[in-house]
Protein backbone atom coordinates (compact mmCIF):
# COMPACT_ATOMS: atom_id res chain seq x y z
CA UNK A 1 0.00 0.00 0.00
CA UNK A 2 1.31 3.41 -0.90
CA UNK A 3 1.69 5.83 1.94
CA UNK A 4 -0.68 8.74 2.18
CA UNK A 5 -0.02 11.99 3.97
CA UNK A 6 -1.90 12.54 7.20
CA UNK A 7 -3.88 15.40 5.65
CA UNK A 8 -5.04 13.11 2.85
CA UNK A 9 -6.02 10.44 5.34
CA UNK A 10 -7.86 12.97 7.48
CA UNK A 11 -9.77 14.28 4.47
CA UNK A 12 -10.82 10.88 3.19
CA UNK A 13 -11.86 9.72 6.66
CA UNK A 14 -13.93 12.84 7.30
CA UNK A 15 -15.59 12.51 3.93
CA UNK A 16 -16.38 8.82 4.45
CA UNK A 17 -17.70 9.43 7.96
CA UNK A 18 -19.78 12.35 6.71
CA UNK A 19 -21.50 10.24 4.05
CA UNK A 20 -21.94 7.37 6.48
CA UNK A 21 -23.55 9.63 9.05
CA UNK A 22 -25.97 11.04 6.49
CA UNK A 23 -26.84 7.60 5.19
CA UNK A 24 -27.53 6.24 8.65
CA UNK A 25 -29.31 9.23 10.01
CA UNK A 26 -31.74 9.63 7.16
CA UNK A 27 -31.71 6.13 5.79
CA UNK A 28 -33.34 4.50 8.79
CA UNK A 29 -35.95 6.98 9.81
CA UNK A 30 -37.91 8.16 6.82
CA UNK A 31 -39.22 10.98 8.99
CA UNK A 32 -35.66 12.11 9.65
CA UNK A 33 -35.73 14.66 6.87
CA UNK A 34 -39.09 15.94 7.95
CA UNK A 35 -38.23 16.18 11.61
CA UNK A 36 -35.37 18.61 11.17
CA UNK A 37 -37.89 21.05 9.67
CA UNK A 38 -40.88 20.17 11.84
CA UNK A 39 -39.08 20.60 15.13
CA UNK A 40 -38.19 24.29 14.75
CA UNK A 41 -41.33 24.95 12.73
CA UNK A 42 -43.62 23.74 15.48
CA UNK A 43 -41.72 25.90 17.96
CA UNK A 44 -42.12 28.96 15.75
CA UNK A 45 -45.85 28.33 15.35
CA UNK A 46 -46.45 27.70 19.05
CA UNK A 47 -44.62 30.77 20.23
CA UNK A 48 -46.18 32.97 17.52
CA UNK A 49 -49.60 31.82 18.66
CA UNK A 50 -48.75 32.56 22.30
CA UNK A 51 -47.53 35.99 21.31
CA UNK A 52 -50.65 36.74 19.29
CA UNK A 53 -52.88 35.46 22.07
CA UNK A 54 -51.26 37.65 24.70
CA UNK A 55 -51.30 40.51 22.19
CA UNK A 56 -47.96 41.65 23.45
CA UNK A 57 -46.16 43.36 20.62
CA UNK A 58 -42.99 44.60 22.21
CA UNK A 59 -40.96 44.60 19.03
CA UNK A 60 -42.33 46.92 16.39
CA UNK A 61 -40.58 46.53 13.05
CA UNK A 62 -39.69 42.89 13.70
CA UNK A 63 -41.57 40.02 12.16
CA UNK A 64 -41.96 37.78 15.17
CA UNK A 65 -41.99 34.42 13.30
CA UNK A 66 -38.77 35.39 11.54
CA UNK A 67 -37.29 36.45 14.87
CA UNK A 68 -38.19 33.07 16.36
CA UNK A 69 -37.02 31.07 13.36
CA UNK A 70 -33.61 32.74 13.23
CA UNK A 71 -33.14 31.99 16.92
CA UNK A 72 -34.42 28.42 16.99
CA UNK A 73 -32.57 27.30 13.89
CA UNK A 74 -29.21 28.57 15.07
CA UNK A 75 -29.80 27.39 18.63
CA UNK A 76 -30.70 23.91 17.35
CA UNK A 77 -27.54 23.91 15.27
CA UNK A 78 -25.46 24.78 18.31
CA UNK A 79 -27.19 22.29 20.58
CA UNK A 80 -26.95 19.45 18.08
CA UNK A 81 -23.25 20.06 17.52
CA UNK A 82 -22.57 20.14 21.26
CA UNK A 83 -24.80 17.30 22.40
CA UNK A 84 -24.10 15.20 19.30
CA UNK A 85 -20.39 15.29 20.04
CA UNK A 86 -20.86 13.86 23.48
CA UNK A 87 -21.66 10.32 22.45
CA UNK A 88 -19.68 10.42 19.22
CA UNK A 89 -16.79 8.43 20.71
CA UNK A 90 -18.86 5.60 22.11
CA UNK A 91 -21.22 5.49 19.13
CA UNK A 92 -18.35 5.07 16.69
CA UNK A 93 -16.25 2.78 18.82
CA UNK A 94 -16.37 -0.07 16.34
CA UNK A 95 -14.88 2.17 13.69
CA UNK A 96 -11.69 2.67 15.66
CA UNK A 97 -10.74 -0.81 14.51
CA UNK A 98 -9.86 0.92 11.29
CA UNK A 99 -6.53 2.38 12.14
CA UNK A 100 -6.96 5.70 10.37
CA UNK A 101 -10.25 6.60 12.02
CA UNK A 102 -9.46 8.73 15.05
CA UNK A 103 -12.08 9.73 17.61
CA UNK A 104 -11.54 13.37 16.75
CA UNK A 105 -12.58 12.69 13.15
CA UNK A 106 -16.01 11.61 14.27
CA UNK A 107 -16.52 15.00 15.94
CA UNK A 108 -15.44 16.88 12.84
CA UNK A 109 -17.65 14.87 10.52
CA UNK A 110 -20.61 15.31 12.86
CA UNK A 111 -20.02 19.04 12.82
CA UNK A 112 -20.28 19.05 9.03
CA UNK A 113 -23.39 16.90 9.11
CA UNK A 114 -25.06 19.27 11.56
CA UNK A 115 -24.04 22.21 9.42
CA UNK A 116 -25.59 20.59 6.38
CA UNK A 117 -28.80 19.90 8.26
CA UNK A 118 -28.87 23.47 9.52
CA UNK A 119 -28.34 24.83 6.00
CA UNK A 120 -31.09 22.72 4.52
CA UNK A 121 -33.51 23.63 7.31
CA UNK A 122 -32.67 27.30 6.93
CA UNK A 123 -33.24 27.23 3.20
CA UNK A 124 -36.58 25.57 3.71
CA UNK A 125 -37.55 28.24 6.20
CA UNK A 126 -36.48 30.98 3.80
CA UNK A 127 -38.71 29.45 1.14
CA UNK A 128 -41.62 29.38 3.60
CA UNK A 129 -40.95 33.00 4.49
CA UNK A 130 -40.83 34.08 0.86
CA UNK A 131 -44.03 32.19 0.12
CA UNK A 132 -45.88 33.91 2.94
CA UNK A 133 -44.41 37.26 1.99
CA UNK A 134 -42.56 37.88 5.24
CA UNK A 135 -40.02 40.62 5.62
CA UNK A 136 -36.65 38.90 5.69
CA UNK A 137 -34.31 41.74 4.90
CA UNK A 138 -30.96 41.20 6.60
CA UNK A 139 -29.11 44.14 8.11
CA UNK A 140 -25.58 42.80 8.09
CA UNK A 141 -25.22 39.52 6.28
CA UNK A 142 -21.46 39.18 6.82
CA UNK A 143 -21.83 39.57 10.56
CA UNK A 144 -24.75 37.15 10.52
CA UNK A 145 -22.70 34.45 8.78
CA UNK A 146 -19.78 35.05 11.07
CA UNK A 147 -22.00 34.80 14.14
CA UNK A 148 -23.53 31.52 13.00
CA UNK A 149 -20.14 30.01 12.20
CA UNK A 150 -18.73 31.22 15.48
CA UNK A 151 -21.66 29.69 17.31
CA UNK A 152 -20.91 26.43 15.50
CA UNK A 153 -17.27 26.54 16.54
CA UNK A 154 -18.35 27.32 20.10
CA UNK A 155 -20.63 24.28 20.00
CA UNK A 156 -17.77 22.19 18.65
CA UNK A 157 -15.41 23.39 21.37
CA UNK A 158 -17.91 22.60 24.11
CA UNK A 159 -18.70 19.29 22.44
CA UNK A 160 -15.05 18.26 22.30
CA UNK A 161 -14.55 19.22 25.92
CA UNK A 162 -17.65 17.33 27.05
CA UNK A 163 -16.91 14.34 24.83
CA UNK A 164 -13.55 13.82 26.50
CA UNK A 165 -15.06 14.19 29.98
CA UNK A 166 -18.03 11.90 29.34
CA UNK A 167 -15.69 9.22 28.05
CA UNK A 168 -14.23 8.88 31.51
CA UNK A 169 -17.15 10.04 33.66
CA UNK A 170 -20.32 8.73 32.16
CA UNK A 171 -22.68 10.40 34.61
CA UNK A 172 -21.41 13.75 33.46
CA UNK A 173 -23.42 13.42 30.24
CA UNK A 174 -26.63 12.90 32.17
CA UNK A 175 -25.95 15.83 34.45
CA UNK A 176 -25.26 17.99 31.44
CA UNK A 177 -28.56 17.07 29.87
CA UNK A 178 -30.39 18.40 32.94
CA UNK A 179 -28.29 21.51 33.08
CA UNK A 180 -28.89 22.29 29.44
CA UNK A 181 -32.68 22.08 29.70
CA UNK A 182 -33.28 25.57 31.12
CA UNK A 183 -30.85 26.99 28.54
CA UNK A 184 -33.71 26.91 26.09
CA UNK A 185 -35.45 29.60 28.11
CA UNK A 186 -32.32 31.51 29.07
CA UNK A 187 -30.89 31.94 25.59
CA UNK A 188 -32.98 34.81 24.28
CA UNK A 189 -34.78 32.74 21.72
CA UNK A 190 -38.16 34.44 22.07
CA UNK A 191 -37.24 37.74 23.67
CA UNK A 192 -34.50 40.31 23.39
CA UNK A 193 -32.19 41.21 26.22
CA UNK A 194 -33.41 44.76 25.84
CA UNK A 195 -36.93 43.77 26.79
CA UNK A 196 -35.83 42.35 30.15
CA UNK A 197 -35.61 44.26 33.43
CA UNK A 198 -32.10 45.44 34.20
CA UNK A 199 -31.46 42.91 36.95
CA UNK A 200 -32.41 40.02 34.68
CA UNK A 201 -30.28 41.38 31.85
CA UNK A 202 -27.15 41.16 33.97
CA UNK A 203 -27.86 37.60 34.93
CA UNK A 204 -28.83 36.18 31.56
CA UNK A 205 -25.84 37.75 29.87
CA UNK A 206 -23.60 35.40 31.84
CA UNK A 207 -24.94 32.77 29.52
CA UNK A 208 -22.64 32.80 26.49
CA UNK A 209 -25.35 31.45 24.20
CA UNK A 210 -27.59 34.48 24.68
CA UNK A 211 -24.69 36.64 23.52
CA UNK A 212 -24.55 34.67 20.29
CA UNK A 213 -28.30 34.73 19.75
CA UNK A 214 -28.36 38.44 20.51
CA UNK A 215 -25.59 38.95 17.95
CA UNK A 216 -27.51 36.96 15.38
CA UNK A 217 -30.75 38.81 16.02
CA UNK A 218 -28.94 42.14 16.07
CA UNK A 219 -27.26 41.51 12.73
CA UNK A 220 -30.47 40.26 11.17
CA UNK A 221 -33.06 42.88 12.08
CA UNK A 222 -32.72 46.52 11.18
CA UNK A 223 -34.38 47.76 14.34
CA UNK A 224 -32.44 45.58 16.77
CA UNK A 225 -28.89 46.18 17.89
CA UNK A 226 -26.00 44.30 19.39
CA UNK A 227 -25.07 46.60 22.24
CA UNK A 228 -25.43 43.90 24.92
CA UNK A 229 -23.10 41.51 23.11
CA UNK A 230 -19.77 40.95 24.87
CA UNK A 231 -17.36 39.73 22.21
CA UNK A 232 -14.47 39.16 24.58
CA UNK A 233 -16.64 37.03 26.80
CA UNK A 234 -17.74 34.93 23.82
CA UNK A 235 -14.15 34.55 22.69
CA UNK A 236 -13.12 33.22 26.10
CA UNK A 237 -15.96 30.73 26.01
CA UNK A 238 -14.81 29.52 22.60
CA UNK A 239 -11.08 29.39 23.07
CA UNK A 240 -10.83 28.05 26.60
CA UNK A 241 -12.94 24.90 26.12
CA UNK A 242 -11.41 24.37 22.70
CA UNK A 243 -7.87 24.32 24.03
CA UNK A 244 -8.64 22.48 27.24
CA UNK A 245 -10.62 19.98 25.19
CA UNK A 246 -7.79 19.54 22.70
CA UNK A 247 -5.22 19.27 25.46
CA UNK A 248 -7.07 16.49 27.24
CA UNK A 249 -8.03 14.86 23.97
CA UNK A 250 -4.43 14.59 22.81
CA UNK A 251 -3.38 13.24 26.17
CA UNK A 252 -6.09 10.63 26.27
CA UNK A 253 -6.56 9.71 22.60
CA UNK A 254 -4.92 6.33 23.06
CA UNK A 255 -7.02 5.65 26.11
CA UNK A 256 -10.18 6.54 24.20
CA UNK A 257 -9.10 4.25 21.38
CA UNK A 258 -8.50 1.28 23.63
CA UNK A 259 -11.63 1.67 25.74
Amino acid sequence: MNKRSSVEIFKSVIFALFLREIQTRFGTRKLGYLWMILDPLSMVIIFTLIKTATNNNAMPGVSYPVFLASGFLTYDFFRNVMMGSMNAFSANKALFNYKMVKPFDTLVSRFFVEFLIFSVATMTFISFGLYFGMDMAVKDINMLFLAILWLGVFGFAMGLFFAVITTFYETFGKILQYISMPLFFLSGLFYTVDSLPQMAQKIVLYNPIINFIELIHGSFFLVLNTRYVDYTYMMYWTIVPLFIGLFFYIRSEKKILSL
Partner: protein
Amino acid sequence: MIVLDNVTKYFKTEGEKKYILKNVSFVLPEGINLGILGRNGAGKSTFLRMLGGIDFPTSGDIRSDKSFSWPMGLAGGFQGSMTGRQNVKFVARIYGKDEASIEKIIQSVEDFAEIGDYFDMPIKIYSSGMKSRLSFGLSLAFDFDYLIIDETLSVGDENFKKKAENALMQKIEHSNVLLVSHSMAILKKLCDVGVVLNEGKLNYFDKIDDAIKFYHQLNLEKPAEGNVKQSSAIYCSDGNIFDDVTEAAKFYKMRPFAILQALEHNNGSLVYLQKVFWRDGMQAQQYQKWKDVFKEQTLISSDGVIFEDVLEAASFYAERFPNKTIEIEDIKEALASEKKVSKKINVQFHYLSEYQ
Protein backbone atom coordinates in the same frame (compact mmCIF):
# COMPACT_ATOMS: atom_id res chain seq x y z
CA MET B 1 9.55 -6.12 10.45
CA ILE B 2 7.83 -5.31 13.70
CA VAL B 3 9.87 -4.03 16.62
CA LEU B 4 8.70 -4.12 20.20
CA ASP B 5 10.83 -1.89 22.33
CA ASN B 6 10.55 -2.44 26.08
CA VAL B 7 6.79 -2.79 25.87
CA THR B 8 4.63 -3.00 28.95
CA LYS B 9 0.89 -3.35 28.85
CA TYR B 10 -1.43 -3.94 31.76
CA PHE B 11 -5.05 -3.58 32.68
CA LYS B 12 -6.17 -2.57 36.09
CA THR B 13 -8.77 -4.87 37.52
CA GLU B 14 -9.96 -4.20 41.06
CA GLY B 15 -6.88 -2.17 41.75
CA GLU B 16 -4.57 -4.96 40.71
CA LYS B 17 -2.42 -4.66 37.65
CA LYS B 18 -2.88 -7.50 35.26
CA TYR B 19 0.11 -7.69 32.97
CA ILE B 20 -0.15 -8.75 29.37
CA LEU B 21 3.39 -7.78 28.57
CA LYS B 22 6.04 -6.73 31.04
CA ASN B 23 9.16 -5.04 29.67
CA VAL B 24 9.17 -7.06 26.50
CA SER B 25 11.57 -6.36 23.66
CA PHE B 26 11.18 -8.44 20.57
CA VAL B 27 11.72 -8.27 16.83
CA LEU B 28 9.50 -10.10 14.39
CA PRO B 29 11.54 -10.59 11.21
CA GLU B 30 10.13 -9.71 7.86
CA GLY B 31 8.05 -12.11 5.80
CA ILE B 32 7.03 -14.42 8.60
CA ASN B 33 3.60 -15.61 9.65
CA LEU B 34 3.08 -15.38 13.37
CA GLY B 35 0.71 -17.44 15.46
CA ILE B 36 -0.21 -16.12 18.89
CA LEU B 37 -1.13 -18.54 21.65
CA GLY B 38 -1.99 -18.16 25.26
CA ARG B 39 -4.48 -19.19 27.83
CA ASN B 40 -7.75 -17.31 27.96
CA GLY B 41 -7.22 -13.95 29.54
CA ALA B 42 -3.53 -13.89 28.67
CA GLY B 43 -4.21 -10.97 26.36
CA LYS B 44 -3.78 -12.52 22.92
CA SER B 45 -6.32 -10.25 21.29
CA THR B 46 -4.94 -7.15 22.94
CA PHE B 47 -1.45 -8.12 21.86
CA LEU B 48 -2.67 -8.65 18.33
CA ARG B 49 -4.41 -5.29 18.31
CA MET B 50 -1.27 -3.62 19.60
CA LEU B 51 0.76 -5.13 16.77
CA GLY B 52 -1.83 -3.80 14.35
CA GLY B 53 -1.66 -0.32 15.83
CA ILE B 54 -5.22 -0.07 17.11
CA ASP B 55 -4.36 -0.59 20.74
CA PHE B 56 -1.41 0.88 22.55
CA PRO B 57 1.14 -0.19 25.14
CA THR B 58 1.01 1.37 28.57
CA SER B 59 4.67 2.14 28.12
CA GLY B 60 7.28 1.35 25.52
CA ASP B 61 6.99 1.44 21.79
CA ILE B 62 5.83 -0.76 18.93
CA ARG B 63 7.24 0.23 15.56
CA SER B 64 6.68 -0.95 12.04
CA ASP B 65 6.55 0.66 8.63
CA LYS B 66 4.28 -2.04 7.27
CA SER B 67 0.56 -1.77 6.66
CA PHE B 68 -1.83 -3.75 8.79
CA SER B 69 -5.37 -4.83 8.13
CA TRP B 70 -8.17 -4.29 10.62
CA PRO B 71 -8.98 -7.41 12.65
CA MET B 72 -10.24 -9.68 9.95
CA GLY B 73 -13.82 -10.79 9.93
CA LEU B 74 -14.75 -7.79 11.99
CA ALA B 75 -18.49 -7.37 11.67
CA GLY B 76 -18.80 -4.77 14.41
CA GLY B 77 -17.60 -2.06 12.08
CA PHE B 78 -20.66 -2.47 9.92
CA GLN B 79 -23.53 -0.06 10.23
CA GLY B 80 -26.75 -2.04 10.44
CA SER B 81 -28.99 0.38 8.63
CA MET B 82 -26.65 0.70 5.67
CA THR B 83 -26.56 -1.84 2.86
CA GLY B 84 -23.65 -4.19 2.31
CA ARG B 85 -22.58 -2.13 -0.65
CA GLN B 86 -22.63 1.12 1.33
CA ASN B 87 -20.61 -0.43 4.12
CA VAL B 88 -18.00 -1.68 1.69
CA LYS B 89 -17.87 1.75 0.08
CA PHE B 90 -17.32 3.34 3.46
CA VAL B 91 -14.28 1.23 4.21
CA ALA B 92 -12.89 1.80 0.73
CA ARG B 93 -13.33 5.52 1.22
CA ILE B 94 -11.49 5.71 4.53
CA TYR B 95 -8.61 4.00 2.79
CA GLY B 96 -8.67 6.86 0.31
CA LYS B 97 -9.50 4.82 -2.76
CA ASP B 98 -10.61 6.66 -5.88
CA GLU B 99 -13.93 5.89 -7.53
CA ALA B 100 -12.47 3.37 -9.97
CA SER B 101 -10.78 1.29 -7.29
CA ILE B 102 -13.85 1.56 -5.08
CA GLU B 103 -15.85 -0.03 -7.87
CA LYS B 104 -13.26 -2.75 -8.19
CA ILE B 105 -13.30 -3.45 -4.47
CA ILE B 106 -17.09 -3.58 -4.40
CA GLN B 107 -17.07 -6.00 -7.30
CA SER B 108 -14.60 -8.33 -5.66
CA VAL B 109 -16.45 -8.31 -2.34
CA GLU B 110 -19.74 -8.95 -4.09
CA ASP B 111 -18.21 -11.88 -5.96
CA PHE B 112 -16.63 -13.37 -2.89
CA ALA B 113 -19.54 -12.98 -0.51
CA GLU B 114 -22.11 -14.53 -2.86
CA ILE B 115 -25.03 -13.09 -1.00
CA GLY B 116 -26.96 -12.04 -4.09
CA ASP B 117 -29.59 -9.37 -3.66
CA TYR B 118 -28.81 -9.04 0.01
CA PHE B 119 -25.76 -7.02 -1.00
CA ASP B 120 -28.11 -4.08 -1.54
CA MET B 121 -30.13 -4.57 1.61
CA PRO B 122 -29.47 -3.26 5.11
CA ILE B 123 -26.93 -5.32 7.03
CA LYS B 124 -29.21 -5.68 10.02
CA ILE B 125 -31.34 -8.21 8.16
CA TYR B 126 -28.30 -10.36 7.33
CA SER B 127 -27.75 -13.68 9.02
CA SER B 128 -24.50 -13.95 10.90
CA GLY B 129 -23.19 -16.18 8.12
CA MET B 130 -23.87 -13.52 5.52
CA LYS B 131 -22.21 -10.91 7.67
CA SER B 132 -19.06 -12.93 7.99
CA ARG B 133 -19.02 -13.62 4.25
CA LEU B 134 -19.19 -9.91 3.63
CA SER B 135 -16.56 -8.96 6.16
CA PHE B 136 -14.23 -11.71 5.03
CA GLY B 137 -14.61 -10.64 1.43
CA LEU B 138 -13.95 -7.07 2.44
CA SER B 139 -10.73 -7.95 4.23
CA LEU B 140 -9.51 -9.87 1.20
CA ALA B 141 -10.26 -7.02 -1.20
CA PHE B 142 -7.45 -4.90 0.21
CA ASP B 143 -3.73 -5.44 0.07
CA PHE B 144 -1.93 -5.30 3.36
CA ASP B 145 1.53 -6.35 4.41
CA TYR B 146 0.04 -8.02 7.45
CA LEU B 147 -3.38 -9.57 7.85
CA ILE B 148 -4.67 -9.50 11.40
CA ILE B 149 -6.85 -12.47 12.16
CA ASP B 150 -8.55 -13.06 15.47
CA GLU B 151 -10.42 -16.35 15.68
CA THR B 152 -12.59 -15.72 12.69
CA LEU B 153 -11.79 -18.66 10.51
CA SER B 154 -14.35 -20.91 12.07
CA VAL B 155 -17.43 -19.00 10.99
CA GLY B 156 -19.95 -20.04 8.42
CA ASP B 157 -20.81 -23.33 6.83
CA GLU B 158 -18.37 -25.94 5.56
CA ASN B 159 -18.39 -24.69 1.98
CA PHE B 160 -17.66 -21.16 3.00
CA LYS B 161 -14.94 -22.26 5.40
CA LYS B 162 -13.14 -24.02 2.58
CA LYS B 163 -13.54 -21.10 0.24
CA ALA B 164 -12.32 -18.66 2.86
CA GLU B 165 -9.36 -20.83 3.66
CA ASN B 166 -8.38 -21.14 0.02
CA ALA B 167 -8.71 -17.43 -0.55
CA LEU B 168 -6.63 -16.81 2.53
CA MET B 169 -3.92 -19.19 1.38
CA GLN B 170 -3.74 -17.29 -1.88
CA LYS B 171 -3.56 -14.00 -0.04
CA ILE B 172 -0.73 -15.24 2.11
CA GLU B 173 1.48 -15.62 -0.91
CA HIS B 174 1.78 -11.84 -0.92
CA SER B 175 0.97 -10.90 2.66
CA ASN B 176 1.78 -12.24 6.09
CA VAL B 177 -0.59 -13.12 8.87
CA LEU B 178 -0.69 -12.37 12.55
CA LEU B 179 -3.08 -14.93 13.90
CA VAL B 180 -4.83 -15.69 17.15
CA SER B 181 -6.65 -18.98 17.11
CA HIS B 182 -7.71 -21.80 19.36
CA SER B 183 -7.49 -24.15 16.45
CA MET B 184 -4.09 -25.79 16.47
CA ALA B 185 -4.78 -27.12 13.00
CA ILE B 186 -5.20 -23.64 11.57
CA LEU B 187 -2.17 -22.35 13.45
CA LYS B 188 -0.08 -25.17 12.04
CA LYS B 189 -1.37 -24.57 8.56
CA LEU B 190 -0.89 -20.81 8.40
CA CYS B 191 1.92 -19.89 10.75
CA ASP B 192 5.69 -20.32 10.66
CA VAL B 193 6.61 -19.08 14.10
CA GLY B 194 4.68 -18.74 17.30
CA VAL B 195 4.61 -16.77 20.50
CA VAL B 196 2.97 -17.89 23.70
CA LEU B 197 1.82 -15.18 26.06
CA ASN B 198 1.98 -16.10 29.69
CA GLU B 199 1.87 -13.86 32.75
CA GLY B 200 3.43 -10.86 31.07
CA LYS B 201 6.13 -12.87 29.34
CA LEU B 202 6.36 -13.42 25.63
CA ASN B 203 7.79 -16.81 24.73
CA TYR B 204 9.02 -16.94 21.17
CA PHE B 205 9.40 -20.15 19.18
CA ASP B 206 11.05 -20.58 15.80
CA LYS B 207 8.63 -23.33 14.96
CA ILE B 208 4.93 -23.12 15.51
CA ASP B 209 4.90 -26.77 16.59
CA ASP B 210 7.15 -25.94 19.52
CA ALA B 211 4.89 -23.08 20.49
CA ILE B 212 1.91 -25.40 20.48
CA LYS B 213 3.80 -27.93 22.58
CA PHE B 214 4.76 -25.25 25.08
CA TYR B 215 1.18 -24.04 25.19
CA HIS B 216 -0.14 -27.48 25.98
CA GLN B 217 2.53 -27.94 28.61
CA LEU B 218 1.38 -24.70 30.17
CA ASN B 219 -2.20 -25.87 30.25
CA LEU B 220 -1.24 -29.14 31.88
CA GLU B 221 0.81 -27.48 34.57
CA LYS B 222 -1.87 -25.02 35.47
CA PRO B 223 -5.47 -26.04 35.08
CA ALA B 224 -7.78 -23.09 34.57
CA GLU B 225 -8.74 -21.32 37.74
CA GLY B 226 -12.33 -20.95 38.83
CA ASN B 227 -13.35 -17.76 37.15
CA VAL B 228 -11.00 -17.90 34.19
CA LYS B 229 -12.91 -19.71 31.52
CA GLN B 230 -10.81 -22.09 29.54
CA SER B 231 -11.30 -22.42 25.85
CA SER B 232 -13.89 -25.04 25.13
CA ALA B 233 -12.11 -26.34 22.05
CA ILE B 234 -12.51 -30.05 21.48
CA TYR B 235 -9.81 -32.04 19.71
CA CYS B 236 -10.31 -35.31 17.95
CA SER B 237 -7.71 -37.96 17.17
CA ASP B 238 -8.52 -37.67 13.47
CA GLY B 239 -7.06 -34.13 13.53
CA ASN B 240 -10.30 -32.20 13.58
CA ILE B 241 -10.74 -29.40 16.05
CA PHE B 242 -14.08 -28.01 17.14
CA ASP B 243 -15.11 -24.97 19.04
CA ASP B 244 -17.31 -26.89 21.41
CA VAL B 245 -19.12 -30.14 22.01
CA THR B 246 -22.15 -29.15 19.99
CA GLU B 247 -20.08 -28.46 16.93
CA ALA B 248 -18.23 -31.73 17.23
CA ALA B 249 -21.50 -33.59 17.73
CA LYS B 250 -22.96 -31.98 14.64
CA PHE B 251 -19.93 -32.91 12.60
CA TYR B 252 -20.02 -36.60 13.52
CA LYS B 253 -23.82 -36.70 13.59
CA MET B 254 -23.67 -37.84 17.21
CA ARG B 255 -25.60 -36.76 20.24
CA PRO B 256 -23.57 -34.12 22.11
CA PHE B 257 -24.07 -36.33 25.13
CA ALA B 258 -22.04 -39.08 23.47
CA ILE B 259 -19.04 -36.78 23.18
CA LEU B 260 -19.47 -35.49 26.71
CA GLN B 261 -19.67 -39.06 27.88
CA ALA B 262 -16.46 -39.93 26.10
CA LEU B 263 -14.69 -36.88 27.49
CA GLU B 264 -15.82 -37.22 31.04
CA HIS B 265 -16.19 -40.94 31.67
CA ASN B 266 -14.25 -42.88 29.10
CA ASN B 267 -10.87 -41.15 29.00
CA GLY B 268 -11.89 -39.52 25.77
CA SER B 269 -12.58 -42.76 23.96
CA LEU B 270 -15.65 -42.66 21.85
CA VAL B 271 -16.36 -46.29 21.21
CA TYR B 272 -18.86 -45.81 18.44
CA LEU B 273 -16.47 -43.75 16.30
CA GLN B 274 -13.38 -45.53 17.60
CA LYS B 275 -11.82 -42.13 18.10
CA VAL B 276 -10.40 -40.21 21.00
CA PHE B 277 -11.54 -36.76 22.04
CA TRP B 278 -9.88 -34.35 24.42
CA ARG B 279 -10.35 -30.82 25.54
CA ASP B 280 -8.08 -27.87 25.10
CA GLY B 281 -5.26 -28.21 27.58
CA MET B 282 -5.82 -31.90 28.25
CA GLN B 283 -3.57 -34.56 26.88
CA ALA B 284 -4.88 -37.10 24.46
CA GLN B 285 -5.37 -40.52 26.03
CA GLN B 286 -4.77 -43.77 24.26
CA TYR B 287 -7.87 -45.15 22.67
CA GLN B 288 -9.17 -47.78 25.05
CA LYS B 289 -11.89 -49.44 23.14
CA TRP B 290 -14.24 -50.67 25.78
CA LYS B 291 -11.86 -51.87 28.38
CA ASP B 292 -13.07 -49.28 30.82
CA VAL B 293 -16.70 -49.34 30.02
CA PHE B 294 -17.39 -52.95 29.41
CA LYS B 295 -19.90 -54.85 31.51
CA GLU B 296 -22.13 -57.71 30.54
CA GLN B 297 -25.19 -55.55 30.08
CA THR B 298 -23.56 -52.54 28.47
CA LEU B 299 -25.43 -51.15 25.47
CA ILE B 300 -24.34 -48.87 22.72
CA SER B 301 -26.71 -46.88 20.58
CA SER B 302 -26.25 -45.59 17.06
CA ASP B 303 -26.27 -42.11 18.61
CA GLY B 304 -22.89 -43.01 20.02
CA VAL B 305 -24.05 -43.13 23.62
CA ILE B 306 -23.13 -45.98 25.93
CA PHE B 307 -25.58 -47.23 28.56
CA GLU B 308 -25.00 -49.44 31.53
CA ASP B 309 -28.20 -51.31 30.95
CA VAL B 310 -31.57 -51.26 29.25
CA LEU B 311 -33.10 -49.20 32.03
CA GLU B 312 -30.64 -46.40 31.62
CA ALA B 313 -31.11 -46.40 27.87
CA ALA B 314 -34.87 -46.25 28.23
CA SER B 315 -34.82 -43.37 30.64
CA PHE B 316 -32.29 -41.52 28.51
CA TYR B 317 -34.55 -41.64 25.46
CA ALA B 318 -37.74 -41.17 27.42
CA GLU B 319 -36.34 -37.92 28.69
CA ARG B 320 -35.40 -36.76 25.21
CA PHE B 321 -38.53 -37.90 23.42
CA PRO B 322 -41.30 -37.22 25.91
CA ASN B 323 -44.00 -37.63 23.25
CA LYS B 324 -42.96 -41.09 22.21
CA THR B 325 -43.45 -42.86 25.55
CA ILE B 326 -40.31 -44.96 25.47
CA GLU B 327 -40.26 -47.87 27.86
CA ILE B 328 -37.80 -50.58 28.74
CA GLU B 329 -39.77 -52.97 26.58
CA ASP B 330 -39.06 -50.88 23.51
CA ILE B 331 -35.32 -51.16 23.94
CA LYS B 332 -35.53 -54.85 24.69
CA GLU B 333 -37.67 -55.31 21.62
CA ALA B 334 -35.14 -53.47 19.51
CA LEU B 335 -32.31 -55.61 20.82
CA ALA B 336 -34.25 -58.74 20.07
CA SER B 337 -35.23 -57.70 16.59
CA GLU B 338 -33.24 -58.56 13.52
CA LYS B 339 -31.93 -55.14 12.64
CA LYS B 340 -31.69 -54.04 16.29
CA VAL B 341 -33.54 -50.82 15.43
CA SER B 342 -36.14 -49.25 17.62
CA LYS B 343 -38.62 -47.92 15.09
CA LYS B 344 -40.09 -45.51 17.60
CA ILE B 345 -36.98 -43.39 17.83
CA ASN B 346 -35.08 -44.78 14.86
CA VAL B 347 -32.02 -45.71 16.88
CA GLN B 348 -30.00 -48.90 16.66
CA PHE B 349 -28.95 -50.69 19.84
CA HIS B 350 -26.22 -53.24 20.39
CA TYR B 351 -24.75 -55.03 23.31
CA LEU B 352 -21.24 -53.79 23.52
CA SER B 353 -19.96 -57.35 23.59
CA GLU B 354 -21.49 -58.00 20.20
CA TYR B 355 -20.55 -54.66 18.73
CA GLN B 356 -17.53 -54.42 16.49
